[in-house]
């Protein structure tokens, strides 16, 4: 399956590095990244392949959220199908 990771928060140095490192730790392969900064608010969306994760998906989700809390960011990991079903006919 493919998961969408969204990262929203105050722009600081190294956000992309930290999230990418988390993906590498868990064996999530990053396929695509897009990021913008809107009025100091950092907003990144990452698409990654999670079929060969080294831990259960739920653990990956929890770790991502924890990483967000530690860095004052909101990080969410959600299955790609949610977005496909909501925004495509």
């Amino acid at each position, binding site marked *: 399956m493919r998961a969408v990771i969204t990262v929203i928060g105050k722009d600081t140095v190294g956000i992309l590095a930290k999230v990418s490192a988390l993906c590498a730790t868990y064996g999530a392969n990053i396929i695509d990244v897009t990021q913008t900064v809107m009025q100091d608010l950092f907003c990144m969306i990452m698409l990654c392949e999670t079929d060969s994760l080294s831990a259960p998906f739920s653990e990956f*989700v929890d770790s991502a959220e924890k990483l967000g809390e530690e860095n004052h960011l909101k990080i969410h990991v959600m299955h790609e199908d949610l977005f496909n079903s*909501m925004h495509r006919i």
Partner: protein
Amino acid sequence: MSIINSRDILETVSMIQDEHLDIRTVTMGISLLDCIDPDIDRACEKVYQKITEKAKNLVPVCEEIEKTYGIPIINKRISVTPIAMVAAACRGQSPLKFALTLEKCAAAVGVNFIGGYSALVHKGFSAGDRELIESIPEALARTEHVCASVNLGSTKAGLNMDAVRLMGETVRRAAELTADRQCIGAAKLVVFCNAPEDNPFMAGAFHGVGEEDTVINVGVSGPGVVRSALSKLGKDAPVDAVAELIKKTAFKITRMGQLVAKEASSRLGMKFGIVDLSLAPTPAVGDSVAHILEEMGLEQCGGCGTTACLALLNDAVKKGGVMASSHIGGLSGAFIPVTEDAGMIDAAASGTLTLEKLEAMTAVCSVGLDMINIPGDTPAEVISAIIADEAAIGMVNSKTTACRLIPAIGKKVGDTLSFGGLLGEGPVMAVNQKSPAVFIHRGGRLPAPLQSLKN
């Protein structure tokens, strides 16, 4: 993002994080017809075995889906065959044992509610029906998770006025027996006309006899999302634009429900039943149907224009949702439970929203007089008459209507009942106390309207 538009992604995240978008309930319907036994203890044992076996994975699977998709699933519930049918074989024994068994099942599998302590008496009472109705107050007082409902009318059959009289007394008694617990018993009891057999919402959920042996039904929520979308629309936008926007939003909400329903039914190895595309409010700020109506341009819900706004909302939700799911069912529309909706609570407390206005609103929305606290000294006949009025609206308009009235024992207009959780809290509302006693005590059957003759 190459595959999905990043604006769409952020919109979904913000719907869930900031606007309370969630799946209100994943409800597993379980038929108990194969548990019928003249020996009530054996029957209860079979019921326990079947429910705990079929639903043992319901909660873990829902939690898994929550994690995978990042969508909160607020309640996990079970609905069963109306217990009056199962209990009918146990002649001369109180069906109360079934209620206690259901409670035990709810605890064993960890669901939030279990519905189906019900009887269908729209044309008359059959074996087991009267006994079940008479046992409802005690069943609700002695259990926490069990919900009861009675269908006493339909467009095809008319209204069973003997049941109407009986239910006025039953509602009162349910409140009296739980007077020390904010009269919570009555909050778990719904009286229906045209009850749907696949409704995933409580307290009125039961598993109809025409359904699969086990089935997954899903109820979505999302008033906050609709309100937020409308708040971005200009105040001078015509109502056509309002309706279009609600349709588009309802489509997205329902798609999420469809995804969860498909996923849950496949992981549980059961058939997918329906998505109920209702806008179900919660007492949380920003999750109110009343606030949607106010966003459309009303000073406060309950004022003139409320019925028209609600009609628009209800219709647009259905039109948007119907294409998003392969099977729509249940109640599908906008809910207006007073104590469960922050905007309704305010409107009722300030006196803008009255019982009479709510009755008018029920003619154009998906359910009926829902979660309304009434003075504790309201006679049973008056409660019966409110039920009759509401059922008549449903019968004539070929729609579901329901009453969930909570007589606030020992309290008067302006006092508050507080249930906590999704049931919320609200003021005791005024009720016209002129006596309908002679009418109610006539009994009999109110004939079905001409529109029942469609063949």
